């Protein structure tokens, strides 16, 4: 396997007030992966990912981005490589128009004006907000604010996009649109996506790999299909598996493969077994 793009080596982190949030984490993330991180509030998810773009520096241990320690990389370079979208977009937005908001980072980086204009339009197109380019961000809906925040990060063309609870408080359609957007960025632009979520069905449907955190440590890390079958460990982390995973587990010796993750996979599997058994239509 190639070299990991993000490499977390025995990281410990203590906040300035003395609260310890990370107790020795090792984690490698490769280019092109989609990884979901789940766990209770206070389990260290946000603290951990803030190490990936230098927002926090480890108290002990080291984080390598592209093979270089974050301690040796200026914040500006890191921000361009690894973009972080906050959980609450209101904390991130402060400009008077959507255009200014999305241009802000590029202006700081002294990108030529015409290039900025082009990039801003491109990323707003990607997140579906081109028609709001002149609006005041404060008056946008929660979902739109969240998308402006994502666009502002995408404008910097990071290789890695970290999104912290992107679907909280969104309705079904909006939440799915976000997840589809991340999937598209991953497939079409090869971006590495790391998302934190409390919505386990998004972990199984969109992330091949899931990391479960508990009390500042990684409790489970592996293919989502395997992670969500570890019932006892999940309980320890207060994480409930999505309905489909629970259903497959509880079906036991039924011939259904145990690594099924999504509704459509389970449907296809049932069709297969049903056919094999020569089963007919539903009867009472």
């Amino acid at each position, binding site marked *: 396997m190639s070299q990991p793009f993000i490499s977390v080596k025995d990281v410990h982190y203590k906040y300035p007030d003395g609260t310890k949030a990370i107790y020795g984490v090792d984690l490698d993330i490769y280019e092109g992966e989609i990884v979901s991180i789940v766990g209770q509030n206070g389990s260290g998810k946000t603290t951990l990912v803030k190490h990936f773009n230098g927002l926090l520096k480890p108290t002990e241990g080291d984080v390598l981005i592209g093979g270089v320690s974050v301690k040796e990389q200026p914040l500006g370079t890191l921000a361009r490589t690894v973009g972080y979208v906050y959980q609450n977009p209101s904390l991130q937005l402060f400009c008077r128009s959507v255009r200014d908001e999305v241009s802000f980072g590029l202006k700081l980086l002294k990108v030529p004006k015409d290039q900025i204009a082009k990039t801003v339009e491109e990323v707003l197109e990607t997140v579906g907000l081109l028609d709001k380019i002149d609006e005041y961000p404060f008056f946008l809906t929660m979902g739109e604010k969240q998308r402006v925040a994502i666009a502002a990060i995408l404008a910097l063309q990071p290789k890695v996009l970290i999104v912290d609870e992107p679907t909280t*408080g969104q*309705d*079904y359609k909006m939440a799915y649109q976000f997840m589809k957007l991340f999937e598209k960025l991953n497939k079409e632009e090869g971006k590495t996506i790391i998302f934190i979520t409390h919505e386990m069905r998004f972990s199984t449907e969109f992330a091949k790999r899931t990391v479960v955190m508990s009390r500042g440590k990684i409790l489970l890390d592996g293919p989502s299909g395997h992670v969500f079958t570890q019932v006892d460990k999940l309980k320890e982390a*207060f994480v409930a598996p999505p309905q489909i995973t629970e259903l497959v587990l509880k079906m036991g010796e039924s011939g259904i493969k145990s690594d099924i993750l999504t*509704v459509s996979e389970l449907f296809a599997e049932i069709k297969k*077994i049903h056919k094999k058994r020569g*089963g007919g239509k*539903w009867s009472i």
Partner: protein
Amino acid sequence: MEYIIDIDNLSWQYKDTEKWVLKDISLKIKKGEFIGIMGQNGAGKSTFCRCLNGLIPHRFNGSMKGKVMIDGEIDTFDMPIAECARKVGMVFQDPDAQFIRGTVEEEIVFGAENAGFSIQEIKDRLEWTLNEVNLDRGFLDKPPSDLSGGQKQRVAIAASLILKPKIMVLDEPTSQVDPIGKLEVFKVIQRLRKEHDMTVILIEHRSDEILKFADRVLLLDEGQILMSEPPNKFFQKVDLLEAKCVYPPQVAQLGYLLHKDPDIQLPMEEIPVTVEQGIECLKKILQL
């Protein structure tokens, strides 16, 4: 039959806007009922809740048609807003937006102070309320910002509860709260129902809690009630829910595929909604 909430042809339009946000809503809710409200962003859910505690028509400008009767024969239109607030407690999605005082104690007693209760009465009610929401006295002197999400929402519930309302309206109370916090909040709500026969109206995007707790679920869309059913029947309507951007449980989504499948043809009314129902259903289909 006596209803605690009786809404008759309610329509509402905010001032200076074209659209009627609520259109001709009629609804009767029994005392002690737990009603879930689902619907996409912009469906009118929050506006509907404002009509229940008198914020509409007393604090918002606009045009109202129809009647909202709360706990008896008085229309919210003729009821002073202070009385509405005593009858109907409100808890919002973002507790931080609701907190205005320096400490948890000040926050909780604020409504009782405004209602003009004596100091002894306020102390007694504070004691009662803390017990109801299972909040440690050690929190009283802390600023609300020091609390976890679940604790904050219990403070917000306490601040409403101190007026001893008969109805609690909760607008996505746990969307910003993690699973343990959710559990804490729902425990409190369950207890209020059990011990005080409290009527609960809950707006939620997630099906899990609605499925577990609600007696009846409403689907609100473009200001109208499209569906009003017990949760089991409600979530079987997967196509309608998906069209209206509501999360159906995954098991119901699977059931719906089995319903549409020409080889299996699972009848609509047999679509499973919970994991347990899903197991029964699959066992039958696979002849296990």
